[in-house]
């Protein structure tokens, strides 16, 4: 009975292998002649879209201030314990600001939780994926490296507003 045939029983044509082998060979030959997908990395760089989660950065307003209010939520939620925030006060309208904001890039796992939890949209994931350090100290990014002007982060912020 035909329907009793198990799936793994091969038909005679399949069992003499040769037609199947030729099929396989033709498939690889076809692929050999197709255009390649490889990107020549250092010369040719991958430019990710808004949904890409590169290294987390702090948003810097046009007037040079950071958006962050040092609430510490990101540091609390970070599953890898990568963020350290120390709050301080100023005389400005927005009183709190982070005196010290450090992300340990060796610990960060690019989960994006910090970005998700931030009430001020102050920490977002950037498109930067070229992260290489020569020592552990270099891997701790302070405010100098984390602050990125808001106009460079438009793609991500738009993405967040439309999908979050």
């Amino acid at each position, binding site marked *: 009975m035909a329907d009793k045939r198990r799936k793994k029983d091969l038909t005679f044509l399949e069992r003499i292998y*040769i037609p199947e*082998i030729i099929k*396989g*060979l033709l*498939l*690889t*030959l076809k*692929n*050999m*002649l*197709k*255009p*390649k*997908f*490889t990107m*020549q990395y250092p010369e040719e760089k991958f430019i990710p879209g808004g949904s890409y989660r590169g290294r987390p950065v702090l948003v810097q307003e046009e007037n040079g201030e950071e958006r962050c209010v040092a609430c510490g939520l990101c540091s609390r939620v970070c599953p890898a314990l990568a963020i350290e925030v120390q709050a301080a006060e100023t005389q400005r309208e927005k009183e709190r600001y982070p005196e010290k904001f450090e992300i340990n890039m060796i610990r960060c796992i690019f989960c994006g939780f910090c970005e998700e939890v931030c009430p001020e949209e102050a920490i977002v994931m950037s498109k930067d994926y070229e992260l290489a350090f020569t020592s552990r100290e270099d891997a701790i990014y302070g405010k100098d490296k984390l602050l990125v002007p808001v106009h460079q982060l438009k793609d991500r912020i738009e993405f967040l507003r439309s999908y979050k």
Partner: protein
Amino acid sequence: MSIWETIIFSLIKILIIVHVMLITVSYLVYFERKISAWAQNRLGPNRVGWKGLLQPFADVLKLLLKEDIVPNQANKPIHTLAPLLALFVAFTTYAVIPFGPDLKIFGYTIPLVVADINVGILYVLALTSLGVYAITFAGWSSGSKYSLLGGIRSSAQMISYEISMGFSIGGVLLLSQSLRPEAIVASQSGWMWNAILQPIGFITFLVSAFAETNRLPFDLPEAEPELVGGFHTEYSSMKFAGFFLAEYANMIIASALIVTLYLGGWQFPYLETFGLPYGWYVAISVLTFLFKEALLLFFFIWVRWSLPRFRYDQLMNLGWKVMFPLSLLNIVWVAGLIMIFKI
């Protein structure tokens, strides 16, 4: 020719062949990587030198600089001997393969084969079976389970496939009535190629050649996913490179053998009727040989990147229940051809 002249010419031929083989082997590795890359829509090595052409030298340099590790449990003399044996077998087999017609130069007639011996095919079979020892020794002397399993698989596989290989050659010998490779080439003039006269024998020989060289789909002795690296798990540095070289040298020999036995050797069909000057005739013949060889090498690599590995029992089934009867059938077929057409 005096004995000294013979020795000098032989030495020159040996030097040329060894160097050509070494260079071919290194570029075979390069093309293996390139073709695998193309089959997977990648580019392959392209950084070292123009289009990555210096990659093989970089690879060898890297292997030379690695530490040579011998495991504590290993049997050291045999552990060292195994890669040397593999290389020895791989390079000496080439001696009897003719790669062109006689060269006439400065009044000498030089046959384009290192040793034109009348038991050439027997010599090849004997040496290739010696190749099993290299792998079995390597597996056994490493003192590691994976290596041992690889070695055992290799010997079982080679024994089962050598039988069908020998029987498929039987068909060729019936037609040429000689064990001399030169005579076998001569018996395939024009389009009387053995691959056309005895297609079954050609296929069984081709499959056994794949099994003999341990290439996919029969690379069970190595089988990275199950045996880590099989017989060469415990090898590093230049000893590992020895096995690597031997594998590719074996590929060259297997394809040279296929060309000689089944694809008309160095003969370009009906070239002698074109009335070319003799020098041109020799050059075109040698180029024809190299061209056929290159096509087969491409085929070897192409198959490797297309087919999955056989399971061990499937391999044995195929060897004993399919290949062996088929090669016998081929002998009957060839004998019938000779009876009917009196070739």
